[in-house]
């Protein structure tokens, strides 16, 4: 197998760029070639931005030629989930209702990456308004998993996960509201990291559920996750929920090892009926590796986690029903044709502009907030949220990290769960709790199932403690040396 430039990690590429061994434009052209080769089959991108990307890469090369110091994101091909607003570049959130929408402003993460010399290759496909776990809810058709084109890449950030897994971007941003970074990372065999709530600004990120939305990263390895996180994290005055602290340098201390670290194993979760045996075995094997590296492992439990899914499916739709009210055909986006008054126009526009899952959640949220039901549903779900947070606090008194499968299963087949929303929701059962609590968590590949699909290992940490999560992930990654590549890519290089 000959790895092309587009298959390298960002830190490898950055070193080569700094040394003058390669040019940013070469890295970009390699990536664009790969997009030409596979995007038609994977349907990863909703909008491609190669023209702009060539300009950005050229600027980086000029700076290198002038012997200017360039940062670690300079010249690295990047993909953004199509929920990040990019000035002058169409941003759809995977929805027909925003099909014609071109934002007049930039989201903060892209603003920061752009300033650092990042090269944007395109906006990736996703479940409509980030609602889904399979990418089948995109208004523009599903993304396919590079490991097996008959399976889903996971969701909702499936396009970003597939892009990084298939060399169409070196790294990518996604969003994680119920697991939408970690679950697709798990299903596509890449590293998916979601830091503490508020660590990365949400300004310019098209909202799904405000109190649960997290920006997350897709990378080829843990070091890259630390690097891109350092580039975009830190306080943003335009987001009132953004953490006030400046971003630390997450790369430092990655290799400090796990000696003496206390690992809590979510045995209840591993024992859940829906967990595939291969997933269970692979996760247990990874725990053994951590013990082998000097960590201690004991059973941990989160007593209210059983209710987390229910709480999530009350809170997220409630917030989404309000967040998505602005899509009414008045100021921007799609407007349905026809006569009548403004209310009829609103109803037709939203009826035709939103897909099934979005309508379902708007209905659910509207109902659970409406007069007479608030206390029983939304109010109670918020109390359960408090209890889940207390469970985490309790568990983190005993443990430094908690570990589990990222998802109960490997990638499932397209269409397998589309008729049964509840079955689809269960796909996020292990990722949702960390979104309710706002705590950092990562998924790293820990093995392949017998049918050749990647399995994800989830490491959950304390509030604000990204460093420990990354340190454990790095140690495990170094030890596992997971190097499998999607068969699709092997076929290309053959």
């Amino acid at each position, binding site marked *: 197998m000959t790895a092309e430039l587009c298959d390298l990690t960002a830190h490898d590429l950055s070193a080569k760029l700094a040394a003058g061994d390669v040019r940013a434009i070469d890295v970009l052209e390699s990536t664009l070639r790969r997009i030409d080769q596979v995007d038609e089959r994977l349907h990863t991108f909703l909008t491609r931005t190669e023209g702009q990307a060539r300009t950005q890469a050229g600027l980086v090369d000029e700076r290198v030629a002038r012997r200017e110091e360039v940062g670690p994101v300079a010249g690295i091909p990047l993909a953004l989930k199509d*929920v*990040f*607003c990019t000035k002058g570049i169409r*941003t759809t*959130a995977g929805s027909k209702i*925003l099909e014609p*929408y071109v*934002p*007049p*402003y930039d*989201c903060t993460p892209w603003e920061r990456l752009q300033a650092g010399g990042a090269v944007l290759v395109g906006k990736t496909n996703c479940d409509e308004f980030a609602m889904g776990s399979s990418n089948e809810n995109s208004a523009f058709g599903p993304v396919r998993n590079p490991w097996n084109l008959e399976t889903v890449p996971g969701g909702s950030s499936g396009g970003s996960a597939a892009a990084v897994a298939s060399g169409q971007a070196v790294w990518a941003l996604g969003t994680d509201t119920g697991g939408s970074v970690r679950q697709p990372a798990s299903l596509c065999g890449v590293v998916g990291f979601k830091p503490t709530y508020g660590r990365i600004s*949400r*300004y*310019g*990120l*098209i*909202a799904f*559920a*405000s*109190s649960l939305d997290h920006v997350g990263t897709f990378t080829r390895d843990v070091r890259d996750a630390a690097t891109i996180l350092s580039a975009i994290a830190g306080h943003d*005055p*335009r*987001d*009132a*929920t953004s953490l006030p602290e400046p971003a630390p340098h997450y790369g430092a201390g990655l290799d400090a090892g796990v000696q003496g670290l206390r690992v809590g194993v979510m045995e209840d979760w591993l024992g859940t009926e829906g967990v595939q045996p291969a997933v269970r075995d692979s996760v247990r094997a990874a725990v053994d590796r951590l013990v082998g590296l000097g960590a201690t492992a004991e059973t941990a439990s989160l007593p209210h986690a059983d209710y987390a899914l229910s709480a999530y499916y009350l809170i997220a739709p*409630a*917030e989404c*029903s*309000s967040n998505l*009210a*602005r*899509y*009414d055909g*008045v*100021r*921007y986006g799609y407007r349905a044709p026809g006569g009548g008054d*403004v*209310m009829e126009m*609103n109803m037709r526009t939203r009826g035709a502009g939103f897909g099934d899952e979005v309508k379902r959640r708007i209905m659910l949220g*509207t109902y659970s*907030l*409406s*007069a007479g039901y*608030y206390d029983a549903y*939304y109010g109670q779900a918020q109390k359960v949220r408090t209890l889940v947070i207390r469970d985490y606090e309790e568990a983190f008194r005993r443990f430094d990290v908690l570990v589990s499968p990222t998802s109960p299963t490997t990638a499932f087949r397209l269409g397998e769960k589309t008729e049964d929303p509840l079955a689809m929701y269960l796909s996020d059962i292990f990722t949702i709790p960390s979104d309710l609590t706002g705590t950092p968590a990562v998924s790293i590949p820990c093995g392949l199932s017998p049918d050749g699909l990647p399995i994800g290992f989830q490491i959950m940490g304390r509030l604000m403690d990204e460093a420990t999560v990354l340190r454990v992930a790095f140690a495990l990654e170094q030890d596992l040396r997971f190097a499998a590549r999607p068969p699709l890519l092997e076929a290309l290089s053959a």
Partner: protein
Amino acid sequence: MAEADTAKATRFETVIGLECHVELSTATKMFCGCLNAFGAPPNTNVCPVCLGHPGTLPVPNEKAIEYTIKIGLALGCRIAPHSIFHRKNYFYPDMPKNFQISQYDLPLCVGGHLDIEVDGETHRVGITRVHLEEDTGKTVHGGATGRIGGAEYALEDYNRAGVPLVEVVSEPDMRSAEQARAYLTELRATLESLGVSDVRMEEGSLRCDANVSLRRPGSEELGTKIEIKNLNSIRSLYRALNFEEERQQVALERGEPLIQETRHWDEGKGITTHGRSKEYAFDYRYFPEPDLAPLEPDPQWIETLRAELPELPAARRRRFQDELGLSAHQAGLVASSAEWARFFEATVSAGADPRAAANWMTGDLAALLRETHQSLTAAKVTPEHLAELVKLLDEQVISSAGAKVALAEAFATGASVDAVVEAKGLRQVGDSEALGGMIEQVIEENPAPVEQFRKGKEGVLGFLVGQVMKKSGGAANPKVAAELLRERLSGSG
């Protein structure tokens, strides 16, 4: 009407509560850095945040919080140690997000009062709450009629969307249109003194809805509540309440049931019309705004703001009476507006007698402002003008007739009173030599009155003095003229 009046007095009691919306005069909007300015071309003070673009987030304006706390303190409210913003969800095209960020069960200020004076009596009106929210954009109804009823389409301007808006909710403590009018006048004066709002009702920076119901005297229960919207002036409020009181009165006497509804005030026709019934009540689906953190104002900050509070109209009225000797009526007129009070105090510091200054302000000056539709601040006349006027009058350099002329001229041109007096020859003529000729002429031209006076009809003297004044163009000193006349007519018979 007379019958209804009797019935009103004996059979029903009016219960009124007011909800007033106040646009704060911050430099920028509530949740974004766009300018908070009236009268800009449509959709020019707008940004992704206040247009509700996807992905945008609100960040509250600290000044708006400060102003709201000041209003709360001025109204004697308790400033909540913990308050939060909610989302009030409903669809309307003037609201970019289709929810309004507002406060619900945990407002910033609770439980205050405002004292009002009506017919020399003081009433205390309770303040339920003062909370902070964002304003909506402006809709123009287009098409055949230009009114909402027959409109074919609507046009939206979002310049006003997101302007900080304070809602002051009173208890249903008012019992007459007069009291409601006094409340709104006092609230406006208070807000004006605080400098937190332009309080221009005609521009919409102060808006008011009234809740009215009638009940049997002595009853604790409230009657069917009618909400009147669209009250754009204090006069509209007063007229609408009188109309509504009468309408409900008549209905109740006829035994017609009232329905809980919203009614609109039609200024042109002088009536209220049906708007929306209670059965169509909105389901606002309030929930805590997840994009905003709670407000927990530092007690130190609150105390600092309390110390910064200016003198409020009620205290000013008291001081003007106690220290400057104004009558209650005068004090009410001069002290109820910060602008007027400032002018008055400057006039007094420039040496004018307070009562004389107050009289001139509420009399001639007020009339001139009314005629020219000007505000006191915008007018050319200054406290120095008025002080000089009062002084010259007091020293009898000019007559009060001359003073009226001088004030009108200074008002129109801004010229100094001294200059006007000279230019117009208003200086009173008081020496007997100068007046002598005129007095001889008047005696000559008015033989009959002269004869009457000589026969002992004292009252005719005033008429003769008036003739001298006329001849002198207002410049004669009437006292001196009277003396000289008396001397001349009684002397040489």
